[in-house]
């Protein structure tokens, strides 16, 4: 039996891998983060600050940990599975749970003492600031 070439190439794992990589590059331009995963993060960047937000529905505040080291921001924690008594029947299970960890590369070193984080309605908002000593300074040029 002859297999049409088109169906063969459609299942070519190398072509699929390449397409996947291309899609990933389009989704995550630059070097902002690792591969996608939970939780999804949005990043805003300014000259002196970076804002990171993340959707963490169903995660308790005490189960969230954020750390900053050099230019790496890490958000990790655990989303616990909802309680259900024995014999409970699941009709729909779209939500996921478990441990998570995401790292975001920052465009500059931030002051670890000036990190502001807020968690409300399952959304985490983090503001990171550039240390004053690290801010670019305008150097006055003296003429003759």
């Amino acid at each position, binding site marked *: 039996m002859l297999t049409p070439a088109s169906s063969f190439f459609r299942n070519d794992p190398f072509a699929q891998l390449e397409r996947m990589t291309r899609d990933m590059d389009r989704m995550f331009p630059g070097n902002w983060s690792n591969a996608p995963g939970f939780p999804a993060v949005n990043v805003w960047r*300014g000259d002196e600050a970076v804002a990171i937000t993340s959707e963490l529905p*169903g995660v308790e505040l005490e189960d969230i940990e954020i750390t900053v080291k050099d230019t790496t921001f890490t958000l990790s924690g655990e989303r616990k599975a*909802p309680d259900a008594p024995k014999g409970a029947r699941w009709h729909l299970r779209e939500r996921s749970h478990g441990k998570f960890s995401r790292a975001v590369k920052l*465009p500059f070193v931030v002051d670890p003492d000036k990190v502001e984080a807020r968690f409300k309605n399952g959304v985490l908002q983090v503001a990171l600031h550039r240390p004053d000593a690290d801010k670019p300074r305008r150097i006055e040029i003296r003429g003759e």
Partner: protein
Amino acid sequence: MNDQLTKPETKAESTPAESRARVPVYRPLTDIVETDDGVSLMLEMPGVGADDLDISLERRVLTIRGTVRIFRPENVELAHLEYGEGDYERAFTLSEDLDPERIEAELRNGVLTLSLPRAEQKLPKKIAVKTA
């Protein structure tokens, strides 16, 4: 393949029929669990506060809507986007054995939990026959 199974974190965009201008409407990811006492629904609606929720019941159709306040930090520009912000909407049809009068709702950490207790079974009325 089922998209929701392979990408559980991807919020599915539903029809933006009743959305505000240019705000997408997402279908919240939901768990439904049934016990002997009734049914519990857990809907993920991050960013929605209790005041932004609208739960309505009409002809056994339970509709949940949530309005999101779009977050726009100052003095910074968007550099990387993994999730979109928008409203939420999803509807469920209740089965006959659930009591629509006793639905309870609780919002915690962006998850709305609806408890729908089972209707108390209509006991057959016993008619006592008195002898004269």
